[in-house]
C-alpha cells in the first residue's frame, strides 16, 4: 500500500479536477485536507528550523546555520545512546507483546464461564491515558513498600529496584507498556481469530492434526497478515513513546530510558534549543519510515501470500 509507483503529478492533478467536476462530493474533503495541513505544514517547518539556531527565548534572532545541528547530533554520544535505547525499547516491547497478546487472544477464544466479562475488561487498559498507566505502575513499582516487591517476596524471588535502578529501568518501562499493549494485540487478534472458519480446524482434526500442528500450520499462517499489522501499530507507538516514559522516569535514572523522542523534548523545551532538538525528532521520523515501511511491505506480501487480496 505504501510504496507503489505513482503516476506523474500533472496526471494526478488533472485527474482530480475531472473528478471534482463529475462528483461535487469531493468538495466535502476540502476541510479535512485543510486540517491535515495543520499537521503537515509544521512538519515542513520542522525541517527548516532544524537548519537554524532557533532558541525559544530568542525567537527574533533566528539564523541559518546549515548542517551544524545535524553534525552535532551525530557526533554526540547522547544521540547514539538514545538511538540504542529507542531500538531496544522497540524490540523488547514487540518481542513480548506479540506472543503474549496472541496467547491472550487464543486463551480468550476458548469457551469458559464469564468469557464475555473478561473480554470486555480488555478494553479498559487501552482506554485510559498512558500517563495514568505510568502513574499506577510507578506506585506499584516502589522499591520500598511497593506491591510488586511484596509479591516477589511472597514468591521467594529477589526484590527489584524497578524504575530506580539503571539496570532495570528500561525493562520496567517495557512492562508498563506491555500492560496495555498485550490488551491491544489481543483485541485485534481476537477479531482476526474469529474470521478463521471452524471448518478448517474440523477437517484438520479429522486428518489427525494435534493442537500444536493446528496452531503451526493453520492458525499462524492465516494470522500472519494480522500479526504484521499489529506489529506495525505497536512499532509506531513504541518508537515514538513519550508519555509513559516521561511520567514514569523522565528518561532516567542516568540516561537509561532516554529515547530519541525524550531527547528531542529535552533539547527543544528544557534547554530551549529548538534548532538542536529538531534533528532528533526528524531522525526518529526517518527510523519510523524505514521500519514501518518495511513492515508495510511485508504486510502487502503476506496478504498476497494468504490470498486476502
Amino acid at each position, binding site marked *: 500500500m505504501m510504496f507503489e509507483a505513482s503516476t506523474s503529478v500533472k496526471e494526478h492533478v488533472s485527474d482530480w479536477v475531472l473528478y471534482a467536476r463529475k462528483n461535487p462530493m469531493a468538495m466535502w474533503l476540502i476541510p479535512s485536507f485543510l486540517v491535515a495541513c495543520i499537521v503537515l505544514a509544521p512538519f515542513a517547518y520542522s525541517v527548516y528550523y532544524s537548519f537554524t539556531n532557533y532558541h525559544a527565548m530568542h525567537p527574533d534572532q533566528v539564523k541559518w546555520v546549515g548542517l551544524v545541528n545535524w553534525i552535532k547530533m551525530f557526533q554526540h554520544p547522547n544521540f547514539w545512546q538514545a538511538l540504542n535505547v529507542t531500538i531496544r525499547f522497540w524490540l523488547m516491547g514487540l518481542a513480548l507483546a506479540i506472543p503474549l497478546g496472541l496467547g491472550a487472544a487464543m486463551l480468550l477464544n476458548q469457551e469458559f464461564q464469564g468469557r464475555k466479562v473478561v473480554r470486555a475488561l480488555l478494553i479498559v487498559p487501552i482506554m485510559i491515558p498512558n500517563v495514568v498507566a505510568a502513574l499506577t505502575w510507578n506506585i506499584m513499582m516502589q522499591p520500598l513498600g511497593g506491591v510488586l516487591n511484596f509479591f516477589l517476596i511472597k514468591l521467594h524471588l529477589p526484590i527489584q529496584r524497578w524504575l530506580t535502578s539503571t539496570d532495570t529501568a528500561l525493562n520496567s518501562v517495557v512492562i508498563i507498556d506491555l500492560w496495555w499493549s498485550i490488551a491491544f494485540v489481543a483485541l485485534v487478534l481476537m477479531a482476526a481469530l474469529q474470521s478463521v472458519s471452524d471448518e478448517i480446524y474440523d477437517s484438520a482434526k479429522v486428518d489427525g492434526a494435534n493442537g500444536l500442528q493446528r496452531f503451526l500450520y493453520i492458525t499462524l499462517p492465516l494470522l500472519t497478515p494480522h500479526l504484521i499489522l499489529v506489529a506495525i501499530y505497536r512499532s509506531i507507538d513504541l518508537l*515514538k513513546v513519550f508519555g509513559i516514559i516521561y511520567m514514569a522516569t523522565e528518561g532516567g535514572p542516568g540516561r537509561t530510558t532516554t529515547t530519541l523522542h525524550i531527547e528531542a523534548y529535552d533539547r527543544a523545551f528544557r534547554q530551549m534549543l*529548538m534548532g538542536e532538538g529538531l534533528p532528533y525528532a526528524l531522525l526518529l521520523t526517518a527510523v519510523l519510515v524505514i521500519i514501518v515501511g518495511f513492515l508495510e511491505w511485508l504486510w502487502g506480501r503476506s496478504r498476497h501470500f494468504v490470498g486476502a487480496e
Partner: protein
Amino acid sequence: MRTNPVKKTIGRIILYFLVALFLIWTIFPFYWLFTMSFKSPIDAISNPPKFTFKVFLENYKAALNMYVKPGSLGFVVVQVEFLKGFKNSMIIGFGSVAVALAVGVPAAYALARTRSRLQKTVGLMFLFVRFIPTFAVVIPLFILWRQLKLYDTYHGMILAYQMNLLPYLIWMMKGYFADIPIEIEEAAKVDGCTAWQVFRNVALPLVAPGLAASAVLVFVAAWNTFEIGYILSQTRAQPVTVALTGYSSTYTGQIQGLAAAAGTLVMLPELLVAGYVQKYIVRGLTLGHGK
C-alpha cells in the same frame, strides 16, 4: 468424543488458571490505584503494603481543591490546578469532537463513496500523520502558536488536537458509511434527492449508532492526549493529563494517595463509557488498514 475425562478436567483447570492470571494482570493495577487513593500518607508508604486500611478521603478533597485539614497530608504542599484541568479537558474534549465531526463526517462519507486511488492517498496521509513523532510537529506548532496568539488557548488546543483525532474519526466513519448498501442511496437519488439530502436523510440516520460510538471514542482520544497539551498549554488551557504530572514529585513520596486519587479521577469518565464503546473499539484500532 475420544478425550478422556481426566485429561479434560486438567485442561479446564489450566484454562481457568491462565484466565485468572490474565485477569489479575489486567485488573490488579486498577484495584491497586483505586485502593491507594483511599490511603492515608502513613498507610500509603507502609512496608509491607496494606491490603486493609481505614478509608481516608482527604486525598480526594485535596485533588478537588477542597478544604483539607492542615497536616493531614503530611508536610508536603502540592498546588496542582487539577479541577481546572478537568474543566479544561472537558471544554477541549467537546470542542475537538464538534470540530472533528463537522469536518470529518462529510469527508468520511465522500471517501466511502469514491474510487480507490483517492482512498489510498488519504489512507497514506493518515498513516503518515499517525507515525510522525509528536515533537516533529509540536515544536514548530509551538513556534507558530505563539506567533498566532493561539498558545495556551482553547481554540489553539482544539485545532492542534485534530491531528490525532481527525484521521481516527474519518477512518472509523468511512467504514460505517461503506457498510450501507449502495442500493438504498441509489433509490433515494432516483427519487430526486441531492447528494447532500442523501447524506443527511439516508446515510446519516443509518450510521447513527456508529456515529455516536465514534464520537465517544474521539472524546476519549482527546481526553487521553498528553504531549500536545504538555507543550501548547501552560495554565489557562492545561488539560487534566498534564495537570496530573504536577503530582509527579508526590507519587514517589509519602502522599502517593493524593496522586492515586487524581489518577482515579482522570480515568473515571472513561470507565463510565467503556461498556458502551466496547464493540466499536476494534475498528478504530487498526487505522488506515483493511476494513
